[in-house]
């Protein structure tokens, strides 16, 4: 399962979305997430779906590849759906079995909740799949630049993030390797109750942490050997400048956001008519 997490995995392709300035993509993702919580009623979600669909289509990342990231949240999704489905009181009871019952409002909230979560993951996956982690952290560094005046170590945070992202696949592979090695030595990660399972993780986590520290030590040395000494006096290989397409993208995104708010107003106005 851990191999399925696509977050932080760049998918190389030549698309408009790939070429956009990372700041645009960061801001867009934020706006998209906010818009999901603003969204109300079928119309709102329809607009969000169209927007997301269009972006995914333009990104040229295969849809199947994108949905891989969803597998990691299946459990969370199920729990959310089940809780919403059974615990929300509504006007009509659609189905009843003992103390379990599903109401119209419960069903509606459960579906919307699920859609919201899925879109959340898909939306952020589009960003991480089309932007190299380095671009992403460059974008973040520049967006958060003003915070430097408040002595926030923006460059250091960005560097740490990009290194963390680079090591995710390596550490996953390592986890896999250690897991197999421990299974070969008779370790059991599958059976037992929750506490036993948690205890079984110890022989996995201890070697993983030791190796992670060793890697960190090596990497720090390699970075110093290549003259890394913080953000001061550092130039950029890929400095960020807004192009015309970035400005256009901003216009589209803000347009989308305004539309979402407009939809929200109109639906609350005609709330009775919609649902």
């Amino acid at each position, binding site marked *: 399962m851990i191999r399925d997490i696509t977050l932080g995995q*760049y998918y*190389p392709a030549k698309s408009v979305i790939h070429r956009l300035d990372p700041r645009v993509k960061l801001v867009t993702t934020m706006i998209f997430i906010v818009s999901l919580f603003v969204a109300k009623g079928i119309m709102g979600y329809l607009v969000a779906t169209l927007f997301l669909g269009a972006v995914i289509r333009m990104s040229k990342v295969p849809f199947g590849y994108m949905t891989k990231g969803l597998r990691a949240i299946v459990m969370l999704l199920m729990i959310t759906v089940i809780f919403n489905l059974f615990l929300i009181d509504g006007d009509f009871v659609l189905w009843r079995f003992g103390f379990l019952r599903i109401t119209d409002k419960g069903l509606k909230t459960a579906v919307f909740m699920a859609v919201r979560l899925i879109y959340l993951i898909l939306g952020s996956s589009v960003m991480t799949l089309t932007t190299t982690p*380095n671009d992403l952290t460059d974008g973040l560094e520049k967006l958060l630049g003003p915070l430097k005046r408040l002595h926030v170590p923006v460059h250091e945070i960005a560097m740490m993030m*990009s290194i963390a992202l680079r090591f995710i696949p390596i550490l996953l592979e390592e986890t896999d390797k250690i897991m197999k090695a421990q299974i070969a030595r008779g370790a059991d990660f599958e059976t037992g109750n929750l506490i036993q399972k948690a205890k079984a993780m110890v022989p996995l986590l201890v070697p993983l942490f030791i190796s992670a520290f060793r890697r960190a030590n*090596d990497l720090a040395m*390699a970075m110093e050997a290549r003259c890394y000494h913080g953000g001061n006096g550092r*130039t950029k*290989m890929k400095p960020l400048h807004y192009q015309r397409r970035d400005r256009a993208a901003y216009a589209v995104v803000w347009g989308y956001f305004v539309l979402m708010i407009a939809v929200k107003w109109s639906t609350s106005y005609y709330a009775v008519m919609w649902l």
Partner: protein
Amino acid sequence: MVRAEGLTFYYERLDEEGNVESKKRAVDHVDLHIRPGKFIAILGHNGSGKSTLAKHINAILTPAEGTLWVDGMDTKEEEKLWDIRQDAGMVFQNPDNQIIGTVVEEDVGFGPENLGVPTDEIWKRVEESLDAVGMLKYRHHSPNKLSGGQKQRVAIAGVMAMHPRCIVLDEPTAMLDPNGRKSVIQTAQRLNREEGITIILITHYMEEVVEADHVFVMDEGRVVMEGSPRQVFSQVEELKKLRLDVPQATLLAFELQKRGVRLPDGILRNEELVDELCRLKSKM
């Protein structure tokens, strides 16, 4: 290029209060003189102090006693630190733990970025260095998808982009398969030959040393043998005492010599051995 006089370094073991419990001498009064443009090999088995010595050349470690000069700069001078590291690049053993970028070209650009090189110049350098190690067509790839040998070549390109005069390779092939090993060593040899970069190769594989201009053999922190590969490998008995293997051709020639076959000393390559044997046969 690199000169050491009486270079000594200790690893200190501290007890829980932070007092020095014991001192282990890792490098012991080493004198070195490496001329620019040479291909130098430093041999030794594990724990012989060869990696510790390598880290001194890049000023990651500074000598406890004695002095090391890189291009005339004393590694103990703090203000020269970045100049020294730019001048003497370093490639480490584990290819995964020294690649910082998530795309090959971004990683190669990391060094020049740190040096404050202007953007256009960084791109030029990245292209040149990737071309020099034969990895230009992988420039947009993720390093995770490359083989070990390819990763090491990217690491070499990352050092090359800083325009060093000397590259220290600290057991760059220890974690690679034979093919990767060959490609890395050939890359190092080509950079030495074509770009005139001083190469200091630290290894325990004898086959990689055959082409070197000068070999140092280390044991317990000291340089115990030095000379051309031919001079060093003709002393098969001593090398065995140091728990080092000699190239197979050399070993076979040595065993044949012991049985009375009249072969010359210091045969290094298979072809040489074949030639010598053919010559013997034609004389019979």
